[in-house]
């Protein structure tokens, strides 16, 4: 679209101004309880300035950086999903009247969010959820209502995390589409700056509000080089070749039993995953029975109730639930929505209390399959 612009660190603040002026509520990374979470942010100072995260299977730690980078970390347990598909929200409220049952108009306007610092994997996750909720034949109007007005400020990953594998999933480390603005942070001798590209007319408008200059070819090349390095520096990798056939063809693989013995079925992996879309509903009524409400909240295929039908759960074993999760993510999702359900963000690995690693389980199943072929 447009050529790349450069915004100096001292002018970056104006991005928040420009968004506020257009009615956006900025949400993005900020530090809380020694973790980078997503929350309301007003200024650059609310960002995790000078922090980085160290992530490994079952481990997450924030440490200080030597510099004052604004985006010098990857992702925490939150994803932007929570703004478009809230963890808990009221679907409707009904009231009994003499004429029957009437819908109480909730009338709550949905906030107009600007997602600040959205990583390429998260952008990919959002486009996956766009398909899940917006491809039909039935639509999630709640999601679409929120989604339509989002402004995306993507931030490319020049540094990667220990559990990242977006390169394998083809979702990063550079955002290619779906953003209004895409930002690459440059530090170093030439000064703290941001290379910014607009991805939409609205993005161009916002960019025009920030003091900027055209990028020099050297700056663009620097950014490209950093992103290339990042591509090769992923903490994890996952071989996706024939992955659907591999998993669908191995429902009885002994590895499922083994992982079932480790898995605590705590649901963490599904709660942190930016693509998981499962939900349940809770119906309640007021004490006098005059009004009733339906609340929708996130659910997880790791609970036994998830698959409950009269007589018992259909997936009583942890092994079967883990298999459902991983096979859905990496295989059946492709049949359902024409894309993998995993973007390689690594959250499920980091936030698993016992450090179960989706990339390792996939590799183990593949290895024994290959051994089988070698023997045949």
């Amino acid at each position, binding site marked *: 679209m447009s050529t790349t612009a450069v915004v100096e660190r001292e002018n970056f603040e104006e991005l928040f101004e420009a968004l506020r002026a257009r009615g956006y509520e900025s949400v993005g990374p900020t530090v809380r309880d020694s973790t980078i979470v997503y929350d309301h942010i007003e200024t650059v100072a609310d960002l995790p300035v000078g922090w980085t995260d160290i992530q490994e299977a079952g481990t997450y730690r924030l440490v200080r950086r030597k510099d004052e980078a604004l985006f010098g970390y990857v992702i925490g347990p939150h994803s932007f999903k929570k703004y478009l598909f809230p963890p808990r929200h009221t*679907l*409707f409220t*009904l009231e*009994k009247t003499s004429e*029957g*049952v009437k*819908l109480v108009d909730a009338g709550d306007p949905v906030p107009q969010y600007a997602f600040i610092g959205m990583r390429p994997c998260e952008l990919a996750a959002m486009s996956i959820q766009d398909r*899940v*909720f917006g491809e039909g*034949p*039935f639509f*999630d*109007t709640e999601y679409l209502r929120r989604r339509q007005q989002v402004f995306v400020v993507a931030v490319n990953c020049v540094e990667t995390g220990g559990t990242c594998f977006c390169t394998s999933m083809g979702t990063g480390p550079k955002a290619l589409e779906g953003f209004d603005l895409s930002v690459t942070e440059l530090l170093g001798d030439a000064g703290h700056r941001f290379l910014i590209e607009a991805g939409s007319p609205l993005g161009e408008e916002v960019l025009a509000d920030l003091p900027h200059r055209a990028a020099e070819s050297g700056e663009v090349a620097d950014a490209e080089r950093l992103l290339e390095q990042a591509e090769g520096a992923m903490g994890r990798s996952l071989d996706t070749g024939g992955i659907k056939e591999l998993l*669908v063809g191995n*429902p*009885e693989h002994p590895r499922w039993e083994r992982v079932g013995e480790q898995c605590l079925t705590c649901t963490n992996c599904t709660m942190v995953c930016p693509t998981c*879309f*499962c*939900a*349940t*509903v809770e*119906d*309640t*009524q*007021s004490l006098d*029975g005059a009004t*009733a*409400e*339906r609340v929708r909240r996130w*659910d997880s*295929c790791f609970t036994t109730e*998830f*698959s*409950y*039908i*009269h007589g018992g759960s*259909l*997936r*009583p*074993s942890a*092994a*079967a639930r883990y*298999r*459902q999760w991983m*096979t*859905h993510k990496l*295989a*059946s999702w492709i*049949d*359902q929505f024409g894309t993998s359900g995993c973007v390689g963000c690594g959250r499920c690995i980091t936030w698993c209390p016992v450090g179960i690693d989706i990339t390792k389980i996939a590799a183990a199943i593949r290895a024994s399959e290959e051994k089988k072929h070698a023997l045949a």
Partner: protein
Amino acid sequence: MVPRFMPVLDVWDDTDDTFTVELDPGPAGFSFRPGQFNMLYVFGLGEVPISISGDPATSGRLLHTIRGVGPVTSAMRDLAKGDLVGVRGPFGVPWPVGLASSRDVVFVAGGIGLAPLRPALYHVLNHREEYERVSLLYGVRSPHDLLFEDEVTEWRGRFDMAVRVTVDTADRKWRGSVGVVTKLIPRAPFDPHNAVAFICGPEIMMQFAAEELAKSGVRAGRIHLSMERNMKCGIGLCGHCQFGKDFICKDGPVFTYEALHSRLDVREV
């Protein structure tokens, strides 16, 4: 996702634990195809998937036949004339009754599975001339559990339909067969090479019946069964009803045995 409310016209018991709720869909009626289901909502209590059990040709009264097993379905037993029930639907892939035309049609029902099959039976009997031989093989636990008894008796009396009923445990008055419904398949009047089967009942019963039919020579692609899974939305958004790659609510509940058989063999899918 907001239900439409319809007044109850009547509620009656079919067996000790099963009853039918008749709803008034209003002047516009309610059209549906055999095998489709609705999400029925009891005010403030909950919403559950229930198949439509009435005749698709009479859209002015909407029937659901329900077994009281838990909070929502039991509360439905207590509904009275004039009470309002929330309805979302109709949802799901129907029994492909069109595919069955000019062929022998075999209905295999287990227990309350006769209810979701009944609209297809009505359709076939309403268009009897379009089909070859028609048979209903029906298995229930005990003679007390026979659903739609008067109607089954009436169908038995028809010359253009074969009805075989079997019970797991007979009482002293029972004169019919005893044993599982699959045992009725080998002697049912159909040409396996030109038959279409519709099966509904507990999953394990459907699996055995489908296997038996396939063994007798019916093509797996012409054997249909209706699957049941936990459902919260009915429209492919909540994820609960997944069975491998399929969402039972929108890709089913009716599937061919051909599409399902490899998954049915795996435990805890």
